[in-house]
């Protein structure tokens, strides 16, 4: 697959967080204070890197079976479609995910939460979307966990997603949440998105059609990447 020429338009007001959002304390010292400069979209912005299937290893999209034993926790499938702002599938898009284990602990030296690590769970996966823009993972449902943002702060359960779309300006890093989690309204990261409907779109939904009886539940989450995919790059060059 080759990249398409991709053109982005300004985000709809309230659907993306501001860089500085004081309830998320660490945003204050790391966000710019000088005015941002509006970026002209040259070919550098309208193209982007495309990754081949040879970067994937067998089992990269099954986070439950990357070790000798099966990961502990509530087994789930996570799947969905990735489209652009015109609803066209984003084909060949690299999707990388990472998450805490079922107890809410990350396999990372910085995470000092006193919850058990699971020797059979790393919490990392990657996949490339198919011709309909679909992705699919098998994993375990991550647990909520405490963090130091404010007194008694807890993150709602979430899976981190990193995506490469048709052009570099469609690049997105975000988090997928789970339906019915009472921690969401208390979470400054979730609440950093001003628009209520946009916040709700970060929540996956239970998908009983994809659930496998006596084995695993399924959650569906569609992702819209910024940009309008134009003619394929090779044609645009002629």
């Amino acid at each position, binding site marked *: 697959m080759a990249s398409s020429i991709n053109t982005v338009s300004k985000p709809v007001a309230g659907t*993306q967080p501001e860089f500085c959002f004081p309830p*998320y304390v660490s945003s204050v*010292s*790391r966000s710019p204070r000088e005015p941002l400069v509006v970026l002209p979209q*040259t070919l550098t912005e309208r193209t*982007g*890197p495309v990754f081949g299937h040879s970067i994937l290893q067998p089992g990269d999209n099954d986070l439950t079976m990357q070790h000798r034993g099966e990961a502990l926790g509530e087994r789930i499938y996570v799947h969905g479609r990735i489209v652009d702002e015109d609803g066209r599938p984003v084909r060949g898009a690299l999707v990388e995910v990472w998450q805490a284990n079922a107890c809410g602990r990350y396999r990372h030296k910085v995470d000092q939460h006193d919850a058990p690590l699971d020797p059979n769970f790393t919490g990392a996966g990657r996949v490339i979307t198919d011709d309909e823009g679909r992705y699919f993972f098998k994993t375990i449902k991550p647990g909520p966990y405490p963090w130091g943002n404010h007194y008694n702060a807890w993150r709602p359960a979430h899976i981190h997603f990193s995506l490469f779309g048709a052009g570099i300006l469609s690049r997105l890093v975000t988090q997928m949440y789970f339906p019915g989690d009472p921690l969401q309204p208390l979470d400054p990261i979730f609440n*950093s998105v001003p628009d209520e409907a946009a916040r709700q779109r970060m929540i996956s939904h239970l998908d009983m059609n994809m659930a496998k009886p006596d084995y695993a539940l399924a959650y569906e989450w569609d992702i819209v990447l*910024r940009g309008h995919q134009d003619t394929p790059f090779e044609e645009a060059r002629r």
Partner: protein
Amino acid sequence: MSETTKLNDSAKWIPTSSQTVGPYFRIGLQSLAHRMSELEAGPDAIEIRGKVFDSEGEPVPDAMVEFWGAAPTGAYSGVQPGANGFPAGFYRAPTGKDGEFSFSIGKPGPAPAGDGRIQAPHFLVLFFARGLLRNMLTRVYFEGEPANDLDPVLAVVPAERRHTLIARADKGTKIYNWNIVLQGKDETVFFDW
């Protein structure tokens, strides 16, 4: 089609909101860091070295910097994966414990802007870190390139801030130094898009 219909149609596909990479992104993103297309190790390779600083001048050890640009030929070769699956002109560099990053890559050639103008050699730079709810965007150019004076993107940056986008060469080497300052004195120019 009426204007109203168009708006309603586009409203169905509002881009998903961004959220921070958080402190644990290495779990998912490290395995493709420091990897590159087999095309990069040529005679045009340069080394880019830098550090990231926050508002207090403290190094930022939990950031990730991604670079995207044209190949030395000026073509955007990375729009297709190389033989090893990696696109040319792309590099992912998580920062080290002192906020540092360094890597070697082919120096981009002058590349078409797409409107008939030519751009000076540069990378578009995506910046991710705990504390940033969205990635930030900047560009890095190279000291001593005559084409910098004619570059269509540098031209829209206020003249007194352009120096924050230009990597300084170590004389007699292929090493370029470029720091990223997130906030405060000599704050790096970041773009809106």
